């Protein structure tokens, strides 16, 4: 258990990459991108965890109680928002690309090469 959560993050990142490499549909590529991104959430929050710590919210806890690292949580929160908005933007591009190109298969998207 000492480094397993970090390794899990690495594995998830690679899994997302693999899905993107083998994808035959841009929508799936975008989905895999968000899988790869969840690796960053897992890594950041795993790093901030403290054994025996509680959530860093003091509304009903003593200010002296042991808490987990709040900074990584703030970072992850930013990351979640960034991820969601980028996904939305990419999906919007995919919709229009499908309209104009008639396909979302990377093998058939041949407008830009050489």
């Amino acid at each position, binding site marked *: *258990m000492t480094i*397993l*959560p970090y390794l*899990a993050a690495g*594995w*998830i990142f690679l*899994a*997302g990459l*693999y*899905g993107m490499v083998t994808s*035959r*549909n841009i*929508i*799936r590529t*975008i*989905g*895999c991108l*968000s*899988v790869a991104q*969840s*690796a960053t*959430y*897992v890594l950041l*929050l*795993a790093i*901030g*965890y403290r*054994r*025996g*710590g*509680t*959530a*860093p*919210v003091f509304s009903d806890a003593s200010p002296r109680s042991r*808490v*987990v690292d709040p900074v990584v*949580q703030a970072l*992850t*929160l930013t990351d*979640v*928002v960034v*991820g*969601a908005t980028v*996904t*939305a933007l990419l*999906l919007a591009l*995919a*919709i229009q690309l*499908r*309209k104009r190109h*008639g*396909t*979302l*298969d990377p*093998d*058939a998207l041949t407008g830009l090469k050489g």
Partner: protein
Amino acid sequence: MNDANTLNGYLIAVALVLVTATATAAALTREPVRQAIVLGLLGLELAVLFTALQAPDVALSQLAVGGALTPLLIVLTVRKVRREAAERPDASGDGDPGAGSGPR
């Protein structure tokens, strides 16, 4: 206190295994709508993991974004694409792999 810690440790371990497995499954799922469903599931499991990691704020956003918003956007995108494919059967299909042009 110690028992609660051990319990939380187990919870983290289980959630971690589930998250890893579901993420792998989501990356391997070819069909976008099915992938959206697996992604939704991944979002829920991540929310559980984050709660166990004492990050309720992140869990709440993950629940909203990963569990609902992202899958919804993917489904809407696929729906638009499907609608077009249905109106123009000549265009190469999306959604189901292999229906597009063959490998080079």
